[in-house]
């Protein structure tokens, strides 16, 4: 009896002994979610695949360098499928924190699936690596446990679009603007921003059509006809990829010639849109110039051509689309890698400090990583560009605004 | 014969349409407390429709129904039950997944009978349901389900009882037993309307019959007289009354 008690006591002692800080763990655990099915699957899978690709690449090299232990440590990616279901997502985020005890917490893509993580991370004092959840409600001064990795916050993203129309537009003859957007957080916020920028500019341009349509909208024939009736010089369409596909197809099919037309995903997911809309429908469309076209000066991680080559090698079946979301996932991975290489411990507040210390310093294939004080992404801005066919009939990007990054002149009106 | 007591129920020119079809085309009759009235007639003559209108399943499209001097046309079933009217169904409609006891319990609890309702045990006993009291109603045979229908109706303490083809499917011994029960209910002062195809059973229990055809009454009196009226004979065409 006494012997048994002594044994139990000894076991208790052993449990109580703190792990020496210098002892490196066998692996760094990164926890994340993805949606393999449902409404958000098509944006979630490319982001997640990129993260996975990075993990495999690093582990093949023996792991990532972790400053806290001053050596390379392999990564273990703990990933669950939330099936685009937010109740499930919240359980799984909690599982990652409390059961799997991950060292780093990475959100699923998009605002809707990121939303449950914001409060949970804060509650558990875990720093949340927000990949593409741009929701303005996530970022506040009283919540230090979040930072946005890849997309710029929606409130500043469309600035180059509005600036082009107000600065260069009048000279080209653009006076009347039509604004059409899908009524969700992502594109609704961008529409509000565009409207605000245009009104505040005082430029002689006027918004003649300003309508939100439900995000589920997939046919625009009637709306296009209504826009045409207002005779706008420029049409801004802000929607998700399926909205852009349907809108651009309908414009083409109805045979309407808008003189100037902007769409988000023509640039962000060019390959996807080219497959679905065709080259003809995308010609001379204005869009955000994605990092993949700009060849940003990189001071960390793969450059765009290398990344694309690796992607195509890893996912040859084309089931996961290469594009902006894939770059976003890889950018998150790079921020994580760099953070681990500068953080002096794996304490969550130290991770935050490390992430914020990268702001303005880290230059990846996605541009310059820059955060505002609430953790919102204000770097990685995308210039305004135009898709112009080259002599082989392929589309290439011509950046037109801001002027300092411009690679050509805008073609107006759209031929 | 004693002078007729004041009728408890009066139907005057009752009309019920289904689309363009007149299921009741101005039916007029009455029934008194303690009386057993038979409604007879060929299929489709409107007997069951009459019961359905009186028990509140359908609202009448014309005419009037009064119960104890009060107009009741269009009232919902549960209100009529609370006033003292109840019925059984041609195809019994018990609450299948509830036990026999629970079936009766619902009616005892919600029937709000003015008179003191019979007790659960006496109903189970008198209607030969005691042995199956705790079985779900779906386990009962057709005859048991019919008596359960009746027991449930009685649990609400009705003063007017409408019986829709209660006798169909009963064997001769059961018929006699049922006839006895109905007669004793009438003796207690209950007015009873019986819709029936079995003429023998009608003859055995009714004081008076109404012969219906095409939604109207064509004869009123005893069955013995009815079978001698040419119009009635023509309607039945030597049909069911011969049975």
């Amino acid at each position, binding site marked *: 009896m006494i012997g048994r008690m002594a044994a139990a006591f000894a076991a208790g002692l052993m449990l109580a002994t703190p792990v020496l800080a210098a002892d490196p763990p066998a692996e760094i655990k990164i926890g994340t979610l993805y949606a*393999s*099915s449902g*409404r958000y699957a098509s944006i979630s899978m490319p982001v997640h695949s990129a993260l996975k690709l990075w993990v495999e690449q690093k582990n093949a090299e023996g792991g990532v360098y972790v400053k806290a232990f001053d050596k390379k440590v392999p990564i273990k990616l703990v*990933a*669950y*499928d939330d*099936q685009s*279901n*937010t*109740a*499930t997502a*919240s*359980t799984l985020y*909690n*599982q990652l924190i409390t*059961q799997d005890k991950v060292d780093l917490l990475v959100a699923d893509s998009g*605002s*809707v699936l990121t*939303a*449950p993580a914001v*409060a*949970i991370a*804060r509650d558990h004092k875990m720093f949340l690596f927000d990949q593409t959840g741009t*929701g303005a*409600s*996530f970022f*506040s001064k*009283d919540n230090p446990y979040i930072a946005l990795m890849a997309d710029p916050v929606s409130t500043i993203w469309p600035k180059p679009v509005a600036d082009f129309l107000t600065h260069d537009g009048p000279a080209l003859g653009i006076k009347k603007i039509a604004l059409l957007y899908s*009524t969700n*957080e992502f594109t*609704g*916020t961008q529409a509000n921003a565009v409207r605000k920028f245009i009104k505040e500019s005082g430029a002689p341009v006027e918004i003649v059509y300003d309508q*939100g349509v439900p995000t589920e909208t997939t046919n625009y024939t009637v709306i296009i006809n209504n826009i045409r009736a207002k005779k706008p010089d420029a049409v801004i369409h802000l929607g998700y990829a399926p909205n852009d596909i349907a809108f651009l197809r309908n414009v083409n099919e109805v045979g309407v010639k808008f003189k100037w037309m902007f769409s988000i995903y023509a640039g962000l997911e060019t390959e996807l849109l080219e497959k679905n809309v065709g080259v003809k429908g995308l010609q001379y469309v204005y869009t955000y110039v994605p990092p993949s076209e700009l060849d940003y000066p990189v001071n960390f991680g793969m450059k765009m051509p290398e990344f694309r080559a690796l992607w195509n090698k890893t996912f040859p079946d084309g089931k996961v689309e290469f594009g902006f979301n894939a770059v976003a996932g890889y950018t998150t991975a790079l921020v994580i890698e760099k953070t681990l290489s500068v953080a002096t411990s794996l304490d969550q507040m130290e991770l935050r400090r490390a992430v914020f210390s990268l702001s303005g310093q880290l230059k990846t294939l996605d541009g310059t990583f820059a955060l505002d004080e609430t953790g919102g992404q204000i770097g990685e801005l995308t210039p305004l560009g135009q898709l112009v066919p080259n002599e082989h009939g392929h589309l290439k990007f011509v950046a037109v605004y801001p002027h300092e990054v411009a690679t050509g002149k805008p073609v107006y009106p759209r031929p | 014969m004693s002078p007729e007591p004041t009728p408890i129920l009066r139907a005057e020119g009752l009309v019920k349409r289904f689309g363009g079809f007149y299921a009741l085309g101005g039916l007029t009759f009455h029934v008194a407390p303690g009386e057993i009235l038979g409604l007879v007639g060929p299929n489709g003559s409107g007997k069951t429709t009459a019961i359905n209108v009186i*028990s*509140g*399943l359908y609202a009448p499209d014309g005419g009037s129904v009064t119960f104890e001097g009060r107009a009741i046309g269009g009232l*919902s*079933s*549960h209100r009529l*039950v609370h006033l003292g009217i*109840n*019925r059984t*169904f041609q195809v019994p*409609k*018990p*609450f*299948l*997944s*509830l036990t026999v006891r*629970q*079936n009766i*319990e*619902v*009616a005892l*609890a*919600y029937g709000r009978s003015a008179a003191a309702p019979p007790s659960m045990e006496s109903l189970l006993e008198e209607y030969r349901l005691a042995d199956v009291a705790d079985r779900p109603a779906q386990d009962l045979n057709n005859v048991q389900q019919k008596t359960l*229908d009746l027991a*449930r*109706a009685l649990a*609400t303490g009705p003063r007017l009882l409408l019986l829709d083809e209660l006798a169909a499917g009963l064997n001769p011994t059961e018929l006699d037993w049922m006839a006895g029960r109905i007669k004793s209910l009438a003796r207690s002062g209950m007015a009873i309307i019986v819709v029936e195809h079995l003429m023998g059973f009608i003859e055995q229990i009714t004081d008076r019959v109404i012969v219906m055809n095409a939604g109207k009454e064509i004869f009123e009196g005893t069955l013995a007289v009815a079978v001698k009226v040419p119009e009635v004979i023509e309607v039945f065409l030597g049909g069911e009354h011969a049975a």
Partner: protein
Amino acid sequence: MPSAIRHLLFIVVPLLVVFAILPGVYENHLMLFNFVVFLILAQGVNVIYGFTGYLPFGYVGFFGSGAYGFAMMVMHAHASAPVAVIAAGLAGMLIGLLLTPLLRLSGAYFAIANLASSLAVLHFVANPALEDITRGPYGVSLTATFNPEAAYWAALVVLALTLGVVVYLKNSRFGLALQAVREDPVSAGMAGVNVVRMRVAAWLASALIAGLAGGVYAWYVSVFFPDNVFSGTFSIFAIVFALFGGVATIIGPIVGVLILYGVYNLIGFTTPQYFQLIYGLLIMGLVLFLPAGLVSLVTRRGRHVP
């Protein structure tokens, strides 16, 4: 001992005690919380489907309304969380009241109309025209009331109330009358039961339960979009869990949630790549081979299940 006391003592109390102790033992509190939420919702479905036969395919409409009722009370009236939870219940009930005409429909028509109405409420709440009231599609963030621990206890209180309702229905003449209405509304009328009033009462009780659940959910998660709290999977899960256990019993929906949501989480933690496939097959198998729920394995042998 009257059976109501027995049910409370041997089913309700142990369940509540277990869920009160678990957070101290098991750290994934959100999973426990979701278990509690689904226990509430499955019992809410039980109240309306088990006792009256109306399949609430858009049950999440009440849940989402409750969540937004909570959010609006906190955002506009600066109410404290418990007050806002009560308001959430009333919001669910208000939607229930608006939808009472649906009870005129029967069978699949009711289910479809209810589904449509939940989607209508979603698109209404999420419309940018209502940005000043509901924040439209931009989502709400309720940092002022953020307190997951308190929200968990509130959820247990709501669960206790809900189970109280079900125990009452199981042991009262009111519950018996409801079942009579479900079995045969015409006969129920002939038993003196006011069919319309009964259905409306059960409907509103069920809406209240879902509204309260939505309120505590909003309290716990604190940051959400319309798509989060009006997600159709809440309806589907609640219905499937209740059916799997067996409706019109107290224990059926409880067993259904514990087993099926447990399995769901297990699949999610172990084989996420086939999550949807396995779950879909499970649901199909349930309907084909066990349509009356787990309790039917016992009742088939003639035994009574509370």
